């Protein structure tokens, strides 16, 4: 009766490695002396991610591409592997940001004693002793592992489990800020409750889809749907599952956690999470919608289109009125979700189709947001990071290079040519327009105009406004953050100037398969 499953470890080992590193991290946490933990954890995480990245590249270049493994639970296809690689890349940056200890007098951005009450002497002592939670590294590695699984999940159950694996550590990491812990804890609570709520909805949708198809496998669902046509069960299932994923990506009206969590979470977490979660969620969403629900495209496109329109418009509009830079970037993340959803409305083609468009957009956005939040973490006052945009005024005069780099990220998010964001925006719009979704594209262009306003306003503030008396200053970071910022900026510009190789890579990677 029992047949041992055919698991292709040759294609799967990067994921497993990441999870193994996470477990190893836990072991380190238990047995290594306190003083050694930081260095061990960081090097372990970095080494694991680099190895996994190399493995992913090898898998991507290898012949195994296009196979499914674990009896169809995981699908190793081009887009999946690409997004895995992307997750790993931004996670490398994330680890570097996590490990930044120069900014805040030799301690990281994470709480010294999460269990100590905010404002008590215990908390202060913990800070003074330079305590920190090195558990964040294993937590992060678990999340990365979850994301990588999410990217290549071939059945609904895997999808659900991966979703939880990536979510739980995020809830925890959100609540671990060293400064402004009340905000951080509030963000964690909100993120958790809403996340649990939406994953409940997702799960119910999953159940309905299973009820319709009688199978968990995405490919089977696609076949059944193509054969039998859509029924209410499937449609409701699509709707509820979409909610779960739209929530993760922060689409309106499921976005309300985004600004709060982006603001409350420790900035390194925000930086990494905003990039990595979006990549993983969209990779999963593309696969789900193209492979399992591809036959229902004409039905879900209008609904997703409406969501995309709402997301772009509201995300951009709300960002205009923000005064806190992290919150503003949070709303901007919402707007970007809208643009990505616009790309989702396209169709898969063997040339430059919506898969390529969305993945390129994610690449561009990932680097930009990682870099932007990294810079946010540098801009500080006497009591830690300064979020208030007013106090950013004049940064371009006092710190031209930092401000200029921030401007590059903002311009990329705004989609100006010669930055990666432009090609990304071009791609998703082209994908949608190619599928005849011109009304959404028209709105997208309109919202881009709105969005530009707040990006440019920040640039104006930094370069053309006189600094206030209590203006923020830029702390000198360690190499870790510097490298992350520099490489992100470099990638942002390079992908804007010579996007050809990446585009070709994406076209060669082909579409999602069942």
């Amino acid at each position: 009766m029992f047949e041992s499953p055919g698991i292709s470890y040759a294609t799967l080992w990067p994921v497993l490695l990441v999870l193994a590193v996470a477990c190893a991290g836990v072991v380190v946490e238990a047995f290594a002396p306190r003083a050694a933990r930081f260095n061990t954890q960081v090097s372990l995480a970095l080494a694991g991610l680099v190895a996994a990245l190399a493995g992913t590249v090898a898998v991507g270049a290898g012949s195994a591409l296009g196979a499914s493994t674990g009896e169809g639970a995981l699908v190793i296809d081009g887009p999946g592997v690409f997004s895995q690689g992307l997750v790993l890349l931004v996670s490398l940056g994330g680890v570097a940001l996590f490990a930044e200890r120069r900014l805040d007098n030799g301690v990281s951005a994470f709480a010294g004693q999460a269990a100590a009450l905010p404002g008590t002497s215990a908390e202060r002592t913990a800070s003074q002793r330079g305590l920190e939670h090195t558990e964040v590294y294993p937590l992060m590695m678990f999340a990365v592992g979850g994301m990588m699984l999410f990217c290549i999940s071939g059945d609904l159950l895997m999808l659900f489990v991966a979703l939880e694996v990536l979510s739980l550590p995020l809830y925890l990491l959100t609540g671990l800020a060293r400064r402004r812990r009340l905000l951080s804890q509030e963000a964690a609570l909100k993120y958790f409750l809403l996340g649990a709520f939406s994953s409940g909805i997702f799960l119910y949708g999953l159940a309905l889809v299973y009820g319709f198809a009688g199978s968990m496998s995405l490919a089977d669902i696609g076949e059944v749907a193509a054969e039998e046509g859509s029924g209410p069960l499937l449609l409701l299932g699509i709707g509820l599952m979409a909610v779960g994923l739209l929530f993760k990506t922060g689409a309106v009206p499921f976005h309300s956690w985004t600004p709060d969590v982006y603001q409350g979470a420790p900035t390194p977490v925000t930086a990494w999470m905003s990039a990595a979660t979006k990549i993983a969620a969209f990779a999963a969403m593309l696969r789900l919608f193209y492979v399992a629900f591809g036959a229902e495209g004409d039905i879900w496109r209008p609904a997703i289109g409406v969501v995309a329109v709402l997301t772009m418009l509201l995300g951009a509009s709300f960002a205009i009125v923000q005064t806190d830079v992290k919150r503003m970037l949070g709303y901007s993340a919402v707007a970007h979700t809208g643009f990505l959803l616009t790309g989702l409305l396209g169709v898969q083609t063997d040339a430059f189709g919506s898969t390529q468009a969305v993945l390129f957009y994610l690449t561009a956005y990932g680097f930009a947001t990682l870099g932007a939040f990294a810079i946010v973490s540098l801009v500080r006052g006497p009591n830690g990071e300064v979020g208030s945009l007013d106090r950013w005024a004049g940064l371009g005069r006092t710190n031209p290079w930092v401000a200029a780099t921030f401007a590059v990220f903002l311009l990329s998010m705004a989609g100006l040519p010669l930055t990666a964001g432009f090609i990304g925006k071009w791609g998703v719009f082209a994908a949608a327009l190619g599928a005849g979704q011109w009304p959404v594209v028209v709105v997208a262009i309109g919202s881009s105009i709105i969005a530009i306003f707040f990006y440019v306003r920040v640039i104006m503030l930094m370069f053309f406004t006189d600094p206030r008396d209590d203006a923020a200053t830029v702390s000198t970071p360690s190499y870790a953050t510097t490298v992350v910022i520099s490489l992100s900026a470099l990638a942002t510009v390079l992908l804007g100037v010579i996007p050809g190789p990446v585009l070709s890579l994406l076209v060669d990677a082909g579409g999602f398969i069942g």
Partner: protein
Amino acid sequence: MSFVILAAVTVIAALGLLFARKPVHAALSLAVVMIGLAMIYATLEAPFLFAVQIVVYTGAILMLFLFVIMLVGVDTSDTLKETIAGQKVLATLLGVGLGATLIAGVGQASIATMRGLSSANEGGNVQRLADLLFSRYVIAFEATSALLITAAIGAMVLAHRERIDPKQSQTDLAQKRVADYAKSGKHLGPLPPPGTFARHNSNDTPALLPDGSQSTRSVPAILAGGRTDEGEDA
């Protein structure tokens, strides 16, 4: 028939979740729902789930809930009065709307009658589940381990308070006190109680020492300096 009874029980118990003022009552009604569901699982040819539902869900998870409720304060009770304008009405409307949509959708769908699990369960429900679990779903199964480890770390990080310094014994404290006195002349005895010989007996009024001077040490640090401020440096 058994289904109708069980359904009625579970729905009523579930409603208890909405209307119980005390969290404990809510937890107990959730327990009823879960046990009810467990019984339904049994009727649905899922004996393994029946057991797990009772053992794990009701026995472990729900107990965790109760445990935390006890911790948080078993006596607290919610008023059911809504503080956010329109929340209750909208929530009910939308919730019922969603429910109606679901029910209508499910009802409309020509759901086939049960095929039954007799063939799938051949050789025992648990065995067949195990087959699936360790073949097709083995990776997911492994992944859940990550989930559980995460949960464990999470609980540790958020709840466990690590001792920063080795615990000091009575001897250590006494020796330190004497050493301090030798070095800086710090007072050996206990702190003067606040308000002693002072005009007011409030805690933030410094005590007067025998020589008539004020003893700043008599005011608790928290009152003298105040708590560190939360939020941005304003």
